[in-house]
């Protein structure tokens, strides 16, 4: 169990709602849910959520900490914002789901190999290297996420697509050897490091 997870369990004991309100992006909205279920019915990937948003909100209030934070559910969010515009109480549901996913990741509770969590990390690291996304390396890193063998298989499966994209000049082999980036990479990295420190400090305030 991660240190942060231990600390949070100690800190909030049986009050998971309070923990969510204090540490999850837009978490203070959770108690406003009136359980109408419009969010769950509006989600394009709704059938793939073990616990759709409405259920997640109730589970938070019922103190089902482990079940929520180790759930695969919020990783099904495609960021389509359908739930947000339809919610009669105007809860920022998309952001709460992103926030829960992020918090679960901070605590080290994401189910192992969850593909969207893996992709999110690959994306962030890719982008932070030069300040802009390197699409070629992003694609390759995703193919090879499960190791060399499956990577080769996946790359071959998508070979035709890659060839067509290059022909249409929408993918460039030059990206492999450098590619697009910003000038002030070090400034950007310092800036993000500072933002991360400030955010961590805010979490520590509740000690």
């Amino acid at each position, binding site marked *: 169990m991660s240190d942060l997870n231990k600390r949070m369990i100690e800190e909030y004991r049986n009050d998971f709602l309070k923990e969510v309100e204090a540490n999850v992006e837009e978490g203070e909205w959770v108690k406003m849910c009136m359980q109408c279920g419009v969010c769950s019915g509006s989600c*394009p*990937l709704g059938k793939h959520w073990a616990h759709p948003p409405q259920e997640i909100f109730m589970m938070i209030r019922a103190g089902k900490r482990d079940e929520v934070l180790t759930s695969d559910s919020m990783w099904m969010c495609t960021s389509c914002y359908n739930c947000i515009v339809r919610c009669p109480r105007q809860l920022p549901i998309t952001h709460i789901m992103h926030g829960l996913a992020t918090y679960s990741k901070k605590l080290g509770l994401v189910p192992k190999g969850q593909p969207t969590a893996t992709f999110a990390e690959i994306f962030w690291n890719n*982008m932070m290297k030069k300040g802009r*996304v390197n*699409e070629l390396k992003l694609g390759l890193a995703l193919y090879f996420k499960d190791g060399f063998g499956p990577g080769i298989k996946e790359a071959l499966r998508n070979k035709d697509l890659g060839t067509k994209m290059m022909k249409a000049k*929408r993918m460039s082999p030059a990206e492999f050897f450098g590619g697009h980036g910003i000038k002030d990479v070090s*400034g950007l990295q310092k800036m993000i490091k500072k933002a991360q420190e400030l955010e961590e400090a805010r979490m520590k305030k509740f000690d």
Partner: protein
Amino acid sequence: MAKYTYSYYPGCSSQKGASSSNLMKSVQTMCEELDVELNEIPDWNCCSASIGYASGSELPRLTLSARNIALSEEHNKEQEIVATCAACWLATREAAERLKEDESLFAEANQALAEAGLKLNNTTPIKHMAEVLVEDVGFDEIQAGVKKPLEGIKIAGYVGCQTNRPFGIHGESFENPVYLDKMIEAVGAESIPDYEKKVQCCGGALAFSEPDKSQEMIKGIIEAAYDNGADMIATPCPLCQANVEIYQDQINEKYNTKFNIPVVYYSQLISVAYGRSASDAALDGQLIPAKQLEEIAKK
């Protein structure tokens, strides 16, 4: 001086050799025709799209967009920011609004920005190119410049998610926005206002991490276009365009379908209707050629 001037945030996919370089090129052509001047934000960075949240978390993510707004405020003074990518626009506008609502986050974002020698005022409006066309230029002006009406082409206007929600275009419905249909009509093509899947999700970034789940939705988007007799699909969103166009072979293989429908940008429609060449309209960037547009461009 140009009739309209904006500070431009193209985004990662709208770079040379990137997946929506055809959007970038056709937008440039369209803006030349509409007398819209785009001044790129110097040294802009990635907004972390709608997938960066998990590793980025709130403040670092907001700070990424804050850097772009700060750079724009410093170098492109008094110019509204315009994005052509749905995710870029959404992230930037979301950051601007969140930092306006929350003073402590605003202060912290500025503390982080100071590390890069930047300062955010956060007074700049953030627009989508579709808003520029609908609100600033207007349908009448778009229609007035048409030299080659796209007659005889039936087009399913696929707005997608993030160009439409949570912000969307002022006065439009989230469930059935009609501005893209009006734009299609303005360039002389036939629209399908009742296209059932016009705001259906294509899976977004999950098309990469959850391909099966996403392709099931993409299949529905294409099927509904065919059911309505569409010749092609038009969209404002780079990820919608890519997802709906490039996986048609994989979907055909899996579902035994015979999909082969072109997916183009609104900017390509306008470029061709304004008499520009296939190359200026970036029609050579299609994986599935838009032959009807190519023919009109040739005339």
